[in-house]
């Protein structure tokens, strides 16, 4: 066994880190891959927010002369069948992905959190009913559930968000519930009860904040899968409708025809999806290492 150098270990564990800048630098040094992921996510969010300023073309304007124009000076990433600039469409597509990713994750986590907290803290018949309901929802794969939801709600941005959020609920509810179950027995909950706090207040102000760490870990993972599912739904023609440029729909079935003639139509939207989800996964891994030390590998 090697001799433990206490100074090195302390620095590694983040002792003596001061200020916001200091903790950021520490994160970068400790989780370089996570920092790369955070950079990708930042670039993604900035692209979505400042799409108007970045894009040099309108993503919806068609131009017959530029139909299937290859990448070049005029169209950096080429143009699609209708002569629309690919780069502009990818830039504006970031908005759809960000909206669906954020919207579905927030909605799914919020509903899942409430359900998990209620069923874990109060237990009883409510818990039993909720658990059976979650069983039912988990008996279909995410994409299949989202497909059926999207088809039955109809195509629109809001409906796509709901269709993806609902299948995310059971995962979140399960995690929050199991955390709540163990937190419920903690001495600090007993102490709160002893000083006469109401059960609702204990649940909200003592138990809930302690479930946030696993929730954040879960939410980052869900964000990535929400974007993947959105692209799959759009690819299958059941996602956000035209004219919104969605990365998945840019790859939709017709793209297979262009595999031979216009590969840029196939390559770039896929790169965009993969890069963003890759960034989420990198960041998610780092956050999990940070917040959930038991799984630190």
């Amino acid at each position, binding site marked *: 066994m090697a001799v433990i150098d206490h100074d090195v270990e302390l620095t590694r564990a983040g002792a003596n880190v001061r200020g916001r800048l200091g903790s950021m630098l520490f994160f970068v040094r400790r989780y370089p*891959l996570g920092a790369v992921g955070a950079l990708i996510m930042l670039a993604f969010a900035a692209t979505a927010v400042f799409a108007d300023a970045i894009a040099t073309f309108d993503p919806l304007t068609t131009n017959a002369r530029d139909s299937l124009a290859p990448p070049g000076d005029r169209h950096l990433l080429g143009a699609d069948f209708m002569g629309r600039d690919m780069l502009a469409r990818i830039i504006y597509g970031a908005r759809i992905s960000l909206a669906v990713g954020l919207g579905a994750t927030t909605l799914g986590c919020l509903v899942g959190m409430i359900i998990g907290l209620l069923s874990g803290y109060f237990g009883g018949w409510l818990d039993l009913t909720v658990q*059976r*309901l979650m*069983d*039912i*929802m*988990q*008996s*279909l*794969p*995410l*994409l*299949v559930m989202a*497909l*059926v*939801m999207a*088809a*039955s*709600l*109809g195509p629109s941005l809001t409906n796509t968000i709901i269709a993806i959020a609902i299948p995310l609920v059971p995962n979140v509810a399960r995690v929050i519930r199991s955390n709540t179950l163990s937190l419920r027995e903690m001495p600090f909950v007993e102490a709160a009860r002893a000083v006469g706090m109401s059960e609702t207040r204990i649940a909200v102000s003592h138990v809930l904040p302690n479930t946030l760490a696993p929730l954040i870990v879960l939410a980052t993972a869900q964000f*990535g899968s929400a974007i*993947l599912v959105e*692209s*799959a739904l759009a*690819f*299958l*023609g*059941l996602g956000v409708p035209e004219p919104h440029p969605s990365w*998945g729909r840019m*790859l939709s*079935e017709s*793209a*297979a025809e262009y*595999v*031979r003639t216009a*590969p840029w139509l*196939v*390559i770039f*939207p*896929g790169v965009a*999806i*993969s*890069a963003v*989800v*890759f960034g*989420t*996964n*990198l960041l998610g*891994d780092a956050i999990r290492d940070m917040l959930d030390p038991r*799984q630190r*590998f």
Partner: protein
Amino acid sequence: MGAYLVRRFLLMLLTLFGMSVLIFVMLRLVPGNITDIIFDSAGFVNPAQKAKIERQLGLDQPIVAQYITWISGLARGDLGYAFVSERPALEEILPRIPVTAKLAVLALVFSVLFGVPLGVISAVRQNTGLDYALRVVSLSGLSLPSFWLGLLILMACVNWFGWIPIYRSTPGSFWSEIALLSIPAAAVGFRSSALVMRLTRSSMLEVLRQDYVRTARAKGASDPSVNYDHALRNAMLPVVTIIGIEAAFLIGGLIVTETVFNIPGVARFLVEAIRWRDYPIVQNLVMFIAVIVVVVNFVVDMAYVALDPRIKYEE
């Protein structure tokens, strides 16, 4: 154990019953059914004709009556008639299952064949360059949409071999069919293999730092013996679970991959049926998928008991 099995079986039935109600209500939640789609594309609506078709398909009945008709039929093995083809739903679904099943099995084989050994290597060589490279590869496996991977493979085949791996329903032999299917199977299996690899790695690392592994090393056991005889066996437990769950959840990847490669399987058929609001097909297929998921979950739990004698489902 007997009581546990009975309770578990009843819960499975309850879940499936809930699923059947959920899917049935969800499909009928929105206004508009197959007759609307037909008449929309025809351009004009003759209410009398529309009502006649709705009556023929049983869509004019109250929703509870429609549900009872479906479920009682299901219990007798009668799945009803597909709206689009007007053939018995069973005849539409059954012939499409073998292709999808072969794809799923191949994808699983792929994911285990690559995922487990690479995960073990990554764990044994923790924090080396190889470990980092493998981790990035596995993370990218979780990040690539499988339909895009499929499109990239198609593109590579076209550009490098001038040939597209199109599935034919009458392939030469069993092996040529497998060879043809292995390409889309790899596109689906890449994601699962990444998942299996990550889990194998973290599970291996956890086991490798346990006391009995240190004891084995102290006794002078060789590295391969410690890694494979002592550690791997115990590390495989959670991996078995994830493989089982992936087996049931592969259908998501199969849906898009069958669409990309134009494979006439049951997963692509589900999407087509959803687009047409072909209720009998969608309902029955969704139930079929739910049955697979529920049964696989049960089998995984039982496999756990068989693999780990410490686990007992009693009480």
